């Protein structure tokens, strides 16, 4: 089993996150959200650590983590690319954009490219439907995207922080 979050990071997590929420009401979601934000995931070692610190069963923690689509067990790639597949984007051709992205990156939706550069994330409406179809890359918003924009969008981010 791979370890994604190290011992000393867990200590830091305890001081900066767990201690902050320890005495608040129903803090589990917020603690999990902090882990997702910091490490890009809520891996088993973090779940076990929270369980021990907060006295919540791992079964309960795992149940919550698996229920919500924002939480993942393994870290995502460098860039998170999401073609919005909300209704407005769908009727403006989002599924063809998804196919194009999958073909260009040789990866299926929901997974990460082999070089770790892109994770294709399921995205349902980012609230900018007037600009449909929309592609998000991390926090970068791309509106009224056409299929020939996609190679450019990918190339632009490939350069950033990616080996290849």
């Amino acid at each position, binding site marked *: 089993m791979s370890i994604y979050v190290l011992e000393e990071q867990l200590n830091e997590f305890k001081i900066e996150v767990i201690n902050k929420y320890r005495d608040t*009401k*129903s*803090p*589990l*979601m*917020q603690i*999990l*959200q902090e882990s997702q934000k910091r490490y890009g995931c809520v891996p088993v070692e973090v779940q076990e650590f929270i369980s021990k610190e907060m006295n919540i069963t791992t079964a309960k923690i795992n*149940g*919550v983590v698996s*229920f*919500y*689509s*924002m*939480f993942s067990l393994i870290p995502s790639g460098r860039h998170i690319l999401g073609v919005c*597949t*909300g*209704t*407005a*984007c*769908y*009727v*403006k*051709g989002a599924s*063809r954009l998804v*196919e*194009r992205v999958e*073909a260009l990156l040789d990866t299926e939706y929901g997974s990460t490219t082999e070089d770790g550069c892109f994770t294709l994330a399921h*995205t*349902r*409406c*980012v*609230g*900018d*439907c*007037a*600009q*449909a179809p929309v592609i998000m890359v991390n926090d970068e918003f791309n509106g009224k995207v*056409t*299929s*020939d924009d996609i190679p450019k969008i990918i190339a632009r981010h490939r350069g950033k922080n990616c080996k290849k």
Partner: protein
Amino acid sequence: MNKNILEKIKVETLKANPELNEPHKNLHEKEVRVVLKNCDIINPEDINHYIAKDGYFAINQILTEMSQEDVIKVISDSGLRGRGGGGFPTGRKWDFAYKNENDTKYIICNADEGDPGAFMDRSVLEKDPHSILEGMMIAGYAIGAETGFIYVRAEYPLAAERLQKAIDDALELNILGENIFGTKFNFNIEIRLGAGAFVCGEETALIASIEGNRGMSKNKPPYPAIEGLYGKPTIINNVETLANISQIILKGSKWFRSFGTEKSPGTKVFALAGKIKNTGLIEVPMGITLGEIIHDIGRGVGNKRKFKAVLTGGPSGGCLTEKHLDQEVDFDTLVALGSMMGSGGMIVLDDHDCMVDIAKFYLDFSVDESCGKCTPCREGTIQLYKLLEKITNGEGTLAHLDKLKKLSKAVKKTSLCGLGMTAPNPILSTLEHFYDEYLAHVTHKVCPASSCRGLIEKYIIQDNCVGCTICAKRCPVQCITGERKGLHVIDQDACIQCGECFASCNFDAIITK
């Protein structure tokens, strides 16, 4: 903080920023601004701007002059109905929670905005966050709650940030906190982020999520107004509902009723998207006709295409068609027509959109989002999706249509919460209004909209091609050739039938076989 200080801030801010009194720009004559009155006018990060637009005068007024009953009466008299989809009378809901005595009660603002293709609440949260805080405070005073939660969907980080700033600024002026306006009223607001689950927009699931659990729905009754968050009486209101509250207090229930219809007073914000020229948010009086929204304000579908339908109510709703253009848009009419208001998303479709495919899209969404607690919804939506998949792939039969209808009704009847109870609506509504289109798929194996790729053998460019080169640019396998201004041709052997060219040609030069 008191009224004099509020007045002083108002006068000084208006003097320094005269533009705050300017009217909204580019409004269509049929549009009004009630919920969106401050949006794009004030700086949402400046509490003084909000005060300059009479912000926090309503909470001051009720705390110093009105009893809890008075407040509930004004809201009841206004006829305000919840904008989160169901249209339940807000005053009546507050009254339940008010009468249900308890030391601790809660107010929750539902800012989960789950309908994919709707973005009304996002705008209000980002552009006028204080109006939501004030609405919650008034609700809190009315029912006797001292704590409020705003449940914001995770996809809206900017909204959460602005709300937090608004809360901090209000605390600093002691508009939130203890002994507000020198009275005995205390109120605090906390933000909770969602984590990507549509069902958490449903009130019992939302409560479960705030309590730190899987967001699963519960049987109702008990309703949250009786037994909600941590078992306490809880009022859950939608963002847009809350954005109306302070203005109803300041201007009165009669004023509010000057907009809209007898049974659906006030205005509604709609998010226009899809195949329509003017996309974006509009706010109109309830009772405006569908045609006025689509053709006058939205300026029609454009691109020489033909208007086909508009989807309302998202995955819980249905479609309205050409023949409904004269119908008035309000809560009850839309339900009578087999759709529903929902939160206000309107997705316009043209003659290239296949209604069976749209129903399949929504079912795919419901399959993804079903929380899995009850079998009719968990398994039923999967079966419905599979039936639709067969039909769009050309493997459908007449018997499948029958089964589709029966199963839809069964899932509606037996599901535990609103998600399952409404998930089959897009099927039933499209079956009702576009039965011919379903028939064409199963008997002739044809998709009249040329949208279902399982039923298309090839794409062909006709002589009316003007050589604009767009299709060639967009073809993912570069199998379209032709000179600029010359007739283009598709290399059928290389074509992967993706449909991109068909969708991008603005000259109707591409047909399907």
